């Protein structure tokens, strides 16, 4: 039984590490991946590096039929955009101060981060 308990506790530790403690590696740059694809409950790429202090153009392509995916919100920038299914949408962001800017769907289940630097 102790082995089962140990496995259970290890599983909990894994959950904590995987979702909360893990630090992602370097984000993809906007030049490498110019389009953010919304599909299967995720933004791909979910971490994107952009230049600070210059206007940024992001291109979203929604492939996910779920209505959850239909709006992307940048709460820190007071910006949002409707994402029609299968049609690329270009979003102009103002020049960003260096730092991290989250973007997500209305319910925050789809999540991504812009790293301005």
């Amino acid at each position, binding site marked *: *039984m102790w082995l*089962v*308990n140990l496995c*259970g506790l290890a*599983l*909990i530790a894994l*959950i*904590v590490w*995987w*979702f*909360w403690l*893990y630090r*992602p590696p370097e984000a993809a740059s906007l030049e490498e991946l*110019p389009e953010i694809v919304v*599909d*299967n*409950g*995720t933004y*791909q790429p*979910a971490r994107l590096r952009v230049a600070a202090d210059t206007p940024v*153009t992001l*291109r979203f392509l929604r492939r996910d*039929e*779920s*209505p959850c995916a*239909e*709006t992307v*919100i940048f*709460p820190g920038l*007071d*910006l*949002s955009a*409707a994402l*029609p*299914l*299968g*049609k*690329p*949408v*270009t979003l*102009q962001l103002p020049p960003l101060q260096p730092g991290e800017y989250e973007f997500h769907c*209305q*319910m*925050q*289940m*789809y*999540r991504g981060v812009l790293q301005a630097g």
Partner: protein
Amino acid sequence: MTAAAISARQQTLAVEGAGCASCVSKIEQALAAVPGVERAEMNFADRTVAVSGSAGSEQLIAAIERAGYNARAMADVPDEQALDDKTAADQTYYRRLLVKMAVALGVGVPLMAWGLLGGAMTVTTGGERLAWLAVGLATLGVMAFSGRHFYVGAWRTLANHTANMDTLIALGTGTAWLYSMVVVCLPGYLPEVARHVYFEATAMIIGLVNLGLALELRARGKTSEAIRRLIGLQARTARVLRDGKELDIAIEQVLRGDLVRVRPGEKIPVDGQVSEGRSAVDESMLTGEPMPVEKAAGDEVVAGTLNKSGSIVFRATRVGRDTALARIIAMVRRAQNSKPPIGRLADVIAAYFVPTVMIIAVLSALAWLNFGPQPALAFAIVSATTVLIIACPCALGLATPMSVMVGVGKAAEAGVLIRNGEALQTASKLTAMILDKTGTVTEGAPRVTDVIATGELGEDEIMQLAAGLEAGSEHPLAVAILESAAQRGVSPDRVSGFNALAGRGVEAQLAGRRLLLGNDKLMAERGIDCSARADVARELAAKARTPMYFAVDGTLAAIIAVADPIKADSAAAIRRLRDNGLRVVMLTGDNQATARAVAGQVGITEFYAEVLPEDKAAKVAELQAQGELVGMTGDGINDAPALALANVGFAIGTGTDVAIESADITLMRGSLHGLADAIAVSRATLANIRQNLFGAFIYNIAGIPVAAGVLYPFFGVLLSPVIAGGAMAFSSLTVVSNANRLRLFRPQEQ
């Protein structure tokens, strides 16, 4: 779509066929060669080109086509087509969800019925193993067909180190299926009492969740009804007059400066100024103002409103995304996606929710394995699965945005534009409301209310002379006199020797007669005795009317009273505000007597007269220092500092020509009922959000422990994963449906 504006200054074209970076300079050069083009810059990333200058879009498109590419003008007008596409896509998704549900329930329901009717759900004999293996494979088919999106989504989010509802469903149903397959394939490794299969749970949960998603999709469609209605107001074509011809063109092609003809019964396609014709225009769809507004040469018309009676020609002043309608739609959309502070706690919880539920599921399984009765393993699997399935992050996540979406849309329908969620929430909590008198409580346009003849001249003759005298003046009171004369059908005579006496009045000569119009000070200066009529003047002042004395040849001929009339419904609207528990305060630059009279007529007991514009903000601060949460209502221009300082600034517009970006909340119509509506709708929305959040919290807080089995030691009750699946699917549907109740909200005008 890219920010794109069609105007005489800048327009954006979408370019097709540009496959390489070298195309950029080719296209830019082709455009630069077009006469009237000042600058052309192509954005290769989104294949658009921004062109400055006076060249028409047709010329630009032709130039791009000559260069070997295709192009089309883009106007960021609200796109009905995009909405139709969305509806069609949602319909397709809805049908697919229903098919997936039908397949899953087609397998799950017979299995569940079998179990409920006493059929064996255990594996003891070789025959049962084979039969359950077939069922297991059929369930795998259900998972692959009906539940694929959950598993793919779960895998992708896991790889991204995030988790969502898909993760919980995939883990829950996957665990149940895997355990059941172990029972079927390797029964010898499990104690006999634990050889129970849960294929029906997997199939039923997938079916129910798909059903929930389908119903939620339907309900969500209704939450965007308001924006759909606003977009529907946009005309698709316009009839423009170019080179002496009338052309029916797409709305995107209308340029600033175009002359546009609108016939009775047609929608005004873009914003403009009437140059010909006369008509009544129904603006109720934008302002909430029920009465049609008369339009004649010089008047503004607004896109989306309905031309009722006559044919008019107007010059387009704002087109594309610059029209008031487009800006309203953009603002409503932005506000619908913003969150009031009340939703922040739910957001924080949502971010930690799914991993926490996974940990609870593991702990629950461990508890059953360590302390549970036999078959402990089966109990552990059931409880872990049920915990994973019953938890609903969606209900929490949807609680705030759905209500905001419906509430902000509902407000827009009533002509109330709310800038963002924070303004919505603060408006619901206001304790005091400051009203600027002129233009807010009153019309803001003085009118002649009384002409009291004191000599031999008749009223019309008095007005004819007074109008002649005031024809050269630009004072607001002069405008009132000229309008009054025009209404009486008398035309002003031409005067000579006009002289404006600052702060006192005006004088002039007409056919040898000396005309003098002004206040009591001017009369006293010129030795004209008005004392016999002092009681009349006092009476007028008490009714909030400003008396002016009119003398001819040194003798008092009349007292003309001018007043800024109180809006017909101000008193009723102010009563609504007071009934809502708000402390209503009026500020005015007018004198004490006028302020008292106006306040008395509209039922305001607290007012401050002779307040200079710059002191209005100080008054807001004073009330805030008293602990009040202060709303300030003004015209948005003169009251800007006070509006900015107030907890919520309300800009009250007359018609639609208002700076809709300038205040926290913009009231499209001039009536103060809009203000009472704004307060009512914000309170209703916040109440709705609270209900949703409460329901979502309680559901999860109560549901998860019950699923884990906390009731089992006391009552022997353990929730079935199938019931958990149903509850989860319908919890988010409940939240969306409750938000939709706000659609039925009707502000109570008295």
